[in-house]
Structures are given as C-alpha cells and as structure tokens.
C-alpha cells in the first residue's frame, strides 16, 4: 500500500510486502485474512510445516468462542468452514463448590435468551479452527506463506527486513508478532515483559459422557482453582481444571484411570459415566504482558502482547480483539493515505488495546484470587455475591454481555 498501490513492489530482487506476520497459529492467520480482504499484501512466516500445524486428529483442545469472536470469524470467511463442527453454548452455570460437596445454595445461571444476540458463544475444537485458517489462507491471493525460522529483524526508515534460516530475506512495511507468549519478535525488538506465576497449572482434557450436556457450560469455583465443563458436539465435553503446580504435576503422571478417579468427584454425576477422549494437556498458568504492544514498524498481538490466565477462556478471544482493533486502525490509516506503519498510527492500536487488556488482567486475577480460596469469610462473600447477581437480571445481563465479548469499544469486524 505504497505509492505503487496495493500491490507488491520490487526493490532489487526483494519484494516489499505491506505486512509481515510472524506466527501462523490462530491470531496470525486471522489477521492475515482480515488484512488481505482490506487490500493489504501479507506474508505469514512460521517455522512449523503446514502439515504439522494442520493437526487433523482429535486431541481434546478446544476454544470457547465469544459472540464477538464468532462475528469476526464470520467476516473473514472462517465461520462458514467450522460452523457444522461447533457447539452452541446456550447456558452458563457458575457455582461455588468443594470436592465431594453439592453445589452451594447460591449460584449464577446465565441463559442466552437474556441477550438478543443468540447463543452467548460456541465451543470449537482446535483442529477444525486451524484447518479452516490454513485452507482459507491458501485460497487468498493476497497472502503468501513461508515455512521458515526468523533469525534476525532489522528496521530502517522505509521498512523492516526479516532474515530467515534458509538465507532468504523478507521485506515489509510493518512487522506483526503473533508468535505467542515467548515471542521472539518482541524479544528481538528489545521489548521486555512483565508477568507473574499464579502457582497453578491448568489440566485440560476431553471426556465422553453418558448423558447429553444440552449445550450448558459449567464453571465450578473450587479451592484449588476453577473447573470448567464446556460442551462439544455429541456427548463430549472439554474440561479445564486448575490445580497447584505440585498437585498438577502429580496428577499428570497418573494413569488415565487414576486421573479420572480424581476428576470424577469434582463435578459429580450429572453427566453419567465418563471416560477420557483424546490427550491430556497441562499448561502452567502465568500472566505475561509485554511492556509495549508496539515498536518501530512493529505491533504485537495475542499472547505475544498479553498471555492471560485462561480462567474464562479469554486467550483466543482477546487475541481476536487485537486482530479486530489492528485491522481497524491500519484500514482507517490506509483510507486516509497515512503511513500505516508510522508510530502515530501504531500508538492508536496500543492505546485501544492496553486499557482493555489491563482491565481483563485485573478482573481475571481478582476473580481467581477471590474464588481459589477456602477462607470461610470469602466463601460466604462470594456465595452472597453470586446470589445477588443472580437475583438481579440487569446485573446478570451485564456479566453475560461481558462473557460474550460485547462490552468495551468493539472493532468493526466484531460489531
């Protein structure tokens, strides 16, 4: 998008693209597709071969996509590719619980009938989403994919260069790091991170169960950490379950049978008999936020900017919000003829997202501290709090819209 229009230019033998994206996971492809649709030329670099990223078999990883995220995926042509494999979430039940006890007398019950926008979210397996992204990118003429490892990046007044392991050099006007919480793009730009360890590990697996889940998601707040049961198509649910690092490490070494014996009493028998399906995963819960989301000809999105506690499945949703915000900012800049990689333009993205992310980080942190606790006073407070929220439809709708990702300043792609 330079003086020669929205096409690639040649600088000797080097082709200058509008945007270079490092990271071909989920946020990277989403950004590439959204930008290509706005007329930007995009190159996506990932060290992992496409075949590996495609991840065809069921492995139990799944995302709770908020309504706002689903809208973005619809606009970039992804939702139509995955909708038949998605599971709508019609209700969310949140309650306080302790292993071996029934639910507390007060609980929160959200139904999608309370907001006008339809189901409050959808569950979608990782494998379907990745495959849809890779297929869509291949069909998009504005996107070039490169399987290579970045070894160096350089910025100069007219652009940014990436040196690759193969010896090839890529040239672009703007670099976007979508390379996760250990972002090499951020590190090479000298952007430091702030973070802390929650002392917890999330255990993730999928289970098959005897009785139908009726599209209801459950969240139990237990002393060691929250347990979420999220519905997948059929009689299958995704389980996200937090334990202290030590117990998680111990649980993780157990056989499938012993693992299930520990899991089973934690959510009771309302789904009937359960068995493990797919693999077991363990993710240490750490919050890591980049000190800056932008640099010279550089923007960071997703976990590269902010890796949050996944207590409410907000990681991918927050990343897609970054995508929406960055596309808005770059698109508007290009429409008015601004240099979209200038600090003035990139600062608009950072300003927009930093506030949202700080709010979310604080909210998830406080929620987790309040709930991961066996202090009787706190327990009573939160039981009462949930009872109050549940009794007040207005307040409940507020929480619901927040969970659906419909609050805050929404990017165009999410409206």
């Amino acid at each position: 998008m330079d003086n020669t229009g929205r096409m690639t230019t040649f600088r000797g033998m080097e082709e200058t693209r509008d945007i270079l994206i490092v990271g071909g996971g989920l946020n990277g492809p989403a950004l590439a597709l959204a930008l290509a649709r706005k007329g930007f030329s995009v190159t996506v670099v990932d060290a992992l071969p496409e075949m590996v990223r495609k991840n065809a078999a069921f492995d139990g990883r799944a995302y709770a996509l908020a309504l706002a995220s689903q809208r973005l995926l619809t606009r970039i042509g992804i939702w139509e590719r995955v909708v038949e494999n998605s599971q709508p979430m019609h209700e969310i039940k949140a309650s306080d619980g302790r292993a071996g006890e029934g639910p507390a007398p007060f609980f929160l019950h959200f139904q999608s009938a309370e907001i006008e926008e339809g189901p409050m979210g959808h569950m979608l397996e990782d494998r379907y989403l990745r495959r849809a992204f890779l297929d869509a990118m291949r069909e998009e003429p504005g996107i070039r994919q490169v399987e290579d490892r970045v070894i160096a990046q350089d910025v100069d007044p007219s652009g940014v260069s990436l040196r690759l392991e193969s010896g090839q050099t890529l040239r672009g006007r703007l670099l976007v790091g979508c390379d996760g919480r250990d972002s090499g793009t951020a590190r090479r730009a000298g952007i430091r991170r702030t973070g802390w360890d929650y002392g917890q590990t999330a255990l993730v697996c999928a289970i098959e169960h005897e009785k139908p889940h009726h599209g209801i998601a459950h969240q139990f707040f237990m002393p060691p950490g929250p347990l979420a049961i999220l519905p997948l198509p059929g009689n299958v649910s995704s389980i996200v379950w937090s334990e202290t690092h030590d117990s998680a490490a111990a649980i993780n070494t157990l056989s499938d049978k012993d693992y299930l014996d520990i899991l089973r009493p934690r959510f009771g028998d309302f789904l009937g008999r359960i068995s493990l399906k797919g693999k077991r995963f363990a993710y240490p819960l750490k919050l890591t936020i980049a000190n800056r989301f932008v640099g010279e000809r550089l923007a960071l999105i997703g976990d590269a900017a902010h890796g949050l506690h996944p207590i409410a499945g907000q990681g991918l949703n927050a990343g897609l919000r970054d995508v929406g915000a960055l596309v808005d900012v770059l698109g508007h800049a290009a429409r008015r003829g601004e240099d979209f990689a200038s600090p003035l333009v990139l600062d608009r993205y950072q300003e927009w997202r930093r506030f949202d992310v700080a709010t979310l980080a604080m909210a998830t942190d406080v929620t987790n501290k309040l709930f991961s606790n066996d202090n009787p006073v706190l327990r009573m407070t939160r039981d009462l709090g949930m009872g109050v929220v549940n009794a007040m439809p207005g307040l409940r709708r507020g929480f619901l819209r927040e969970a659906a990702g419909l609050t805050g300043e929404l990017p165009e792609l999410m409206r």
Partner: protein
Amino acid sequence: MQAAPNTVDPGEVAKFEAMAAEWWDPTGKFKPLHLMNPCRLDYITRQIAGEFDRDLDAPKPFAGLRLLDIGCGGGLLSEPMARLGATVVGADAAARNIPVAQIHAEQSGLHIEYLHTTAEAMAEAGETFDVVLNMEVVEHVADPLAYLTACRQLLKPGGLHVCSTINRNPKSFAMAIVGAEYVMRWLPKGTHEWNKFIKPDELFDLLEQAGLRPVDKKGFVFNPISWRWSISERDLSVNYVTASLRPV
C-alpha cells in the same frame, strides 16, 4: 517560478534528514499538526471522493487527479495524497522546507514534486489543478482576497478548493493564541496574529469575491480529555474548514 533543485548538496543531506525527522516526529515540534492530521485528512479525502466520485476503499482512489498542497511544510498532507494516487505538487514559500520534504518523500518511496514558490507565482505561470489544498495558510497572508483569487486561478473549472483557518472571537484568542502558544507551547509565540483570523461568514464572502462557490463548512474540534480532534457540524468556534468549487 523557481523550481526546487533536483539534487541536494551531500553536505546538506544530514541536516535536511534531521529536519525531516523533526517534521515527522509525532511528539516533536510539529505535534499539534500531527494530532490534527487524521481529522484534516478525513475531511479532505471525503470531499475529494465526493466531488470526483471516487471510492476510498479502492486502491489508489485519487489516481488521475492533479493536486496542489500550498504551504506543504514537511509534506504532512502531500504524502498521504500521493499515497492515495494523486499527482501531487507541494509548494512552500519557505525554501528550507523543500529539500526536507523531498528527502522524506524519497524515504517513504513516494514521488512528489516540491517547489519553492507561491500560489500567485504558480497562477501567473498558468499551472492548473483538480484540487487545491489551502490548509492553515490564509490567516498568515497579507492580502487574503488576492491570495484566494490566485487559488481560484490555479483550479481547473469544476476543481475543488479546501481551505481551513481559525475563527476570530474571544474563544479562538484563548485557545489558539493563549492556549497553543503560551500554555501548551505547541507553537512559537507570535505564530498567529489574532486580528488576521477570519470568521466563517467573512471567508465565505472572500471566497465568493474570489470567484469560488462555497459548498461546505465544518469545525475541527479538539477534545482536551481524549487529546483527539474531531469534525463537527456545528462548532466552528476555533478551527474550521471550508470546501468551495471553481464554477464550470
């Protein structure tokens, strides 16, 4: 008309590069212009798109339009217009701005013709344009009517003239002179003389006397909380912009 040199003395390049960096530093000396620029560009691009029936979502929407940016400075408006496909001439009465703007355009990979000249001299030479941008200049000239007449002569019949300036009232005195020059120190003291500011009705009269047909006026309003400028239909009390056409 004195054309700018095509080559710059190598010994001067470093100096001009530093000056270009200064012009384009959003937190530097020209911060107020950078803050206002998105708002100015939104107005200009919409007016051009409307007048010449161009689609801003298309690549290079202003291709084929010849545009003059009077008082181009470091090229803050010229570059976006060139990026949108217009054939741009930037003119500035200050000679030192010309190589500065040229160097920055080269760094941006843009082709723009920058000239050290005045509107009157260009009109005399018989130059014509589809669009004349006349942003924050008219309040600095000695004879506004003669100047605007030259702007009209520079337009092809049916051409578009976008002219912004500052209103004259107690509020504009407080904001533009006391606020911008003394309190915020955004502008050097003495940048503006309040009695040279022009009320919107006076500007419309002047435009008509110069042979232009005014078609639109809007305010540019600064919000001190969000630190953003926005376009206002009603509030023309300080900064405002007008669009006028040279009748066919």
